[in-house]
């Protein structure tokens, strides 16, 4: 089988974060982890091309999946393999979107990433094989991926036994007993020594490791972000008041402060009276400009990014986080202030 292998700029050996805005390109044959994957695949399957794109470019450019898919097709690929992306958000998003696009276009495709990768949800019905959380688990991840490729080549479908990450859906349903009855039942079971019983798994929240402090704030580009749904008065782009499905950007280049009446918060989850009376208290543009004038920061980024946190699902919020990080990196921003309500 002829395989096109998708990698980000780092694993393709084209550079680190400084090269993250690299556009799509092709390397003949396997590259980086593709070489070990080729060894594991043996002679039956051949990586004919490595398709590469920088993480920021891939995460922020509309239509990039179609472009990457075109490169794979041009290389005569019969199968597209993407990753392993491990736990990397932008890389995972790119892999997931690419395998989804390939599957939708009729080209068999297989992704590889950690089950907690924020990109996973974008893979749709395309199969994704579990990888470790970090590149320390490169070899076992590639072994699992190679075995899955071999199985897929025989037209067998992949299952959880192959490491396929099953989409576990928590399905809502009506049951006989109301929640209060079930709560009493659960507390009695717990008192009786059954410490495992629960209707929702307990624990497992990921901790965010803060980035290292800036060396020099005086030369740093700083962005302002908010999940408080601050938009131009009248909400021309119709940002949701709850349960966001998207985020928006607004220019603040040359604006010294946010004028009362020109901006409003459409957040449905908190009392917006004070924020509307002085929008700078929601998005501290006046204070940030002062710091910029005083030379305490290098420059303020020319636009702010905004969504509504109210009722927005964790999965959606994690994807926004990945997209915002890519946007800001691409724009050369070193620090961001994200105000929350």
């Amino acid at each position, binding site marked *: 089988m002829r395989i096109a292998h998708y990698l980000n700029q780092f694993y393709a050996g084209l550079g680190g974060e400084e090269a993250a805005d690299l556009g799509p390109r092709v390397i003949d044959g396997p590259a980086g982890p593709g070489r070990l994957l080729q060894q594991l695949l043996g002679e039956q399957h051949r990586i004919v091309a490595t398709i590469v794109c920088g993480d920021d470019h891939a995460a922020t450019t509309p239509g990039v999946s179609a472009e990457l898919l075109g490169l794979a097709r041009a290389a005569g690929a019969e199968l597209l393999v993407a990753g392993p992306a491990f736990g990397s958000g932008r890389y995972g998003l790119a892999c997931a979107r690419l395998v989804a696009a390939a599957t939708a276009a009729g080209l068999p495709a297989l992704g590889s990433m950690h089950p907690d990768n924020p990109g996973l949800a974008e893979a749709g019905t395309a199969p994704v094989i579990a990888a470790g959380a970090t590149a320390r688990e490169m070899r076992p991840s590639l072994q699992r991926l190679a075995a899955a490729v071999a199985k897929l080549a025989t037209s067998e479908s992949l299952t959880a036994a192959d490491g396929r990450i099953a989409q576990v859906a928590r399905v809502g349903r009506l049951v006989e007993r*109301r929640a209060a009855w079930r*709560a009493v039942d659960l*507390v009695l079971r717990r008192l009786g020594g059954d410490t495992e019983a629960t209707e929702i798994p307990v*624990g497992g929240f990921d901790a965010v490791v803060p980035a290292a402090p800036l060396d020099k704030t005086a030369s740093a580009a700083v962005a302002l972000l908010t999940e408080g749904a601050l938009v131009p008065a009248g909400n021309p782009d119709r940002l949701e008041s709850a*349960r966001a499905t998207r985020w928006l950007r607004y220019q603040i280049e040359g604006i010294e402060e946010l004028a009362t009446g020109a901006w409003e918060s459409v957040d449905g989850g908190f009392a917006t009276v004070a924020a509307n009376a002085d929008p700078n208290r929601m998005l501290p543009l006046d204070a940030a400009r002062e710091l910029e004038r005083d030379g305490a920061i290098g420059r303020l980024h020319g636009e702010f990014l905004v969504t509504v946190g109210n009722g927005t699902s964790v999965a959606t919020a994690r994807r926004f986080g990945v997209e915002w990080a890519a946007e800001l990196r691409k724009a050369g921003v070193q620090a961001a202030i994200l105000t929350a309500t």
Partner: protein
Amino acid sequence: MPRVERSRTVQALRRVVHTVHTVELGETTGYEQGRLLVGRSQAEARYADPALAAVRVHVASPGDAVRIIAPLDVVEPRAKGPGGGMFPGWLAPVNRRRGPETHVLRGAAVLSAGYLPRNQEGLIDMTGPAAELSPFGGTHNVVVEFDPADGASWAEVDAAVRRGSLRLAAHLAEAAVEAEPDAVEELAEPHRPGEPTGGLPRVGVITNLQTQGAFKDVFVYGRSMAGSLPTLFDPAEVEDGAVVSGQYGHPALRNPTYLHQNHPVLAELRARDGRDLRFAGLVLSPEPVEQSGKELCSTHAAWLCRAAGFDAAIVTKEGAGNADNDLALKVDALEALSLAAVALYAEMSGPDGTGPPLVAGPRRGALVSTGNYDQRLRLPAVERALGGDRLRILDVDATAAIEAPVAMMLSALSPLGAGRLTCRAEEAA
């Protein structure tokens, strides 16, 4: 030292239940054999207030092709009989003479609806698939729409509508005081620490009340609980309306006054009292907005439960993300003191249920799922809408066929445990 004899001078509360089978509008309010007649002008008079220009009274019963949009509070009609005493802090002084009987019009509800700032738009369908998800799709509702008076502030309008609904609820139930009851229910006081347990565990409930300021506040004896420490509270007073909601956030995650009056966890603890457990009591707690306040209330609530001799506690909340942290901290604090703890959470796992279910959760304890906030339902068109003409959030006519998340359906994910929704993991093929 003389031994102090503990005598029980306070009688247990008796719920005198009158079941409502039909509700109609008419000339004079009356109740007879399950039929509640609502005197239109008598009802309107309960809302007399300088902040209101007009009110309109409607009825909506289960099965009617009616959608109620922008619902505000819901109140169960209850009355103490001659002399009053219902809704202490609002319609009666707290130190009133407290009669031992509370008349209940079971199956009926007074429900105000209409625009208020921060009233996050919800709905109740009286027919179709959403009807069985909201507790108020199954009640005979006396629905009150209102027009603010010129110059009245929204806070004044809110207070006027609340007072009106409480007065109307008491007025309607007073009509049944002389009627032959359908049932009389004795509500025992909580088990006292130190009394024999018969080997049964003492289980209580902590109920967090949202305290986020105007339009997002819950009142205890007429006052916001913001700034208070958690406190042990007399559950009989909750039956008599000591807890009143003025909280209009996330519709599916709201606890209207009706659900405090009929607190589902209290009811289930009482139902199993003496059989599987001893009902140990009720703790009310605010849900502060600052992290330090959340930590303070959690630490103190756990101490209070231990001091009151609880072996276990069920913890309930109101609202979304912010409130999930209060649940998590309380469960962790209880478990750290070796009390078994269970919390009631709604999930937010996206429309297809594949996302992480919780924003914040405890490290230990056990969790009940009251359903998925993001699950979507198709609702058929209805003949008539009350509470407004348009669903603003979807930008459609209020009677239209719509697709809407469970999040919009009033109390469908009831954090007090009124509903039968849950979620279960199902692996796709």
